[in-house]
């Protein structure tokens, strides 16, 4: 599990650079950065000509609202669907791939630190 004292010196350089995303507060910064980007494109919608085929497209914020609410609806609907169709992993018995390990001789599982 995550370990603050972990020795990261053997991570690839790119991986070490990306460690920033896990620093405390970074997630909040990313969130507000995204919110700022959203504000910009929302405003831009009213400045450019949308050339819409439908009247609704020509309202500058249409895609923003559609994206936000339809996405939320999708996630909520999927959560509801899960209640109906979720089954334990061994539901289809032993002769199903969901239960078995991937054959180890076809893998190269090497720990980076080794």
């Amino acid at each position, binding site marked *: 599990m995550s370990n603050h004292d972990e020795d990261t010196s053997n991570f690839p350089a790119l991986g070490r650079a990306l460690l920033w995303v896990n620093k405390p507060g970074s997630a909040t910064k990313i969130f507000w950065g995204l919110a700022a980007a959203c504000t910009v494109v929302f405003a831009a919608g009213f400045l450019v000509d949308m050339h819409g*085929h439908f009247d609704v497209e020509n309202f500058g914020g249409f895609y*923003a609202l559609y994206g936000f609410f339809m996405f939320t609806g*999708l996630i909520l609907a999927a959560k509801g669907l899960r209640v109906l169709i*979720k089954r334990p992993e061994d539901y289809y018995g032993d002769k199903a*791939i969901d239960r078995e390990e991937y054959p180890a001789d076809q*893998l190269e599982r090497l720990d980076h630190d080794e």
Partner: protein
Amino acid sequence: MMSEVFPTAFLFFAGALALLALPQGRLRAGLLLAIPIAAAWQVWSLPEGGLWQVTFFGLELELMRVDRLARVFALIFTLAAFLGNLYAWHVRDAVQQVAALLYAGAAIGAVFAGDLITLFFYWEGTAIASVFLIWARRTEGAYHTGMRYLIVQIGSGVILIAGAALYYRETGSLAFETMTLGSPGTWLIFLSFGIKSAFPLLHNWLQDSYPAATVTGTVILSAFTTKLAIYALARGFAGTEILIYIGVVMTLFPIFFAEIENDLRRVLAYSLNNQLGFMVVGIGIGTEMALNGTAAHAFAHILYKALLFMSVGAVLFRTGTSKASELGGLYRTMPKTAMFCLVGAASISAFPLFSGFVTKALVLDEAASAHYTWVWAALVFASAGVLSHSGIKIPFFTFFAHDSGLRPKEAPTHMLLAMGITAALCILIGVYPAPLYAILPYPVDFHPYSGGHVVGQLQLLLFALLAFAVLMRTGIHPPEIRAVNLDTDWSYRKAGPWVLARISGLVSAIWGAVGGLFAGQIRAAIAGFYRSHGPEGRIAHIWPTGSMVLWLAILLGVTLVVVYAA
């Protein structure tokens, strides 16, 4: 026989034979790369027209019908074969190597098939060759999944040949050209194509089988079968209106399943199904630009879908699992794979400057300009849905999110190379779509980078991302958990066997009850016969041995008379 060229498919078949003569190792892996390159060069330089006819049981077969629609599909198939084989450079399993070549060859052969009989042979060829990519996993689960896959795929071919026979009786022609849906023959052919292109309710073979294949097998599988079916629909049923609505349903239902699926390779299979929906809508609209959109989207889709399967495959290769619930935080030690995965995710989500943006727009724009309001609204929603599973879920829950504690090694060099080339192509198509537009079946006059289009798409995607961020921070977003979800395969994996077991139980119960009812009488009758006719019976005492000889003589005499009279 008339031949101007060597059929491209035969190049792959010859390669598969030559492969076995080479020792396992770099030479073989090299040949696996050389054949798709040679094939791509050949496909590129082929003249248009019918280039190879052969007479087969009195039927004129056309093995190499080359036109712009066939060429663009054949080209992307050779490219996919090359990238898949590069990704599989480390594989030393002759079964998978031969299967990959035969599979790609059969798919390309089918694309160039000018008649339904040739199409049928290659259609079944893809089924038989590809199942070995699943069986090569060599586990009990993979064996059973492969069997289910094979039954569905072969079934599709059987329906195709039945349809072709009826079509021949109706029209007197076997040429594979645009058909009008209506007669039993055309409906059967349509159904056959529909199975392979994973129409709603016929789709579940895809999500069942692709996660069961080997690490590299899934990458190769993802390119051919379904896109061959898309090609066949575009060739045979362009402008068939029902396809618009079938396509819309295809774009919609998989996004809900993908959202809650735990196995990331199955998430990608659902996502593949959703992308096929966009292509099917394009075929249903059937205008030149819509068909361009279908072909372009198939081209771009094969690349970014392969890229996503490659990145998840690399994770599976290094960690032994592709389940979202077990992964997370892998960017630390697999950052390059993570970056390539993000390129694939951005491409499939159709971010500006990535390939999906310039190809999906062709289909969406045609739907909008023909004023299919609800179709258009559904496709825009489905575009946001693509972002949810392929754009966010795949990279986020694999490489970011909570730290799984796994510190796997970065993917091997050849895998990184395959992913790098594929990612570069995804970006190239997005930034500079003109070369792709130039090889589409019809002339293209379309400019994806209009201000309205870019801003609209960015609004859709960024606000969907914002919704995701809000849902994550509020804890509403469903967590990744170890589970399977029911889909239509439940009908033949659970319900079917259950019903059969009940029927067999009922029949044996009835049999037992009826037998029990009359058992007394039957036993008494046998005992009675035994008493009179058995060795100790009264009748046995007066049985002269000669009576049997007498009866035999009578029987022979009668036979003689009968034969003589006849």
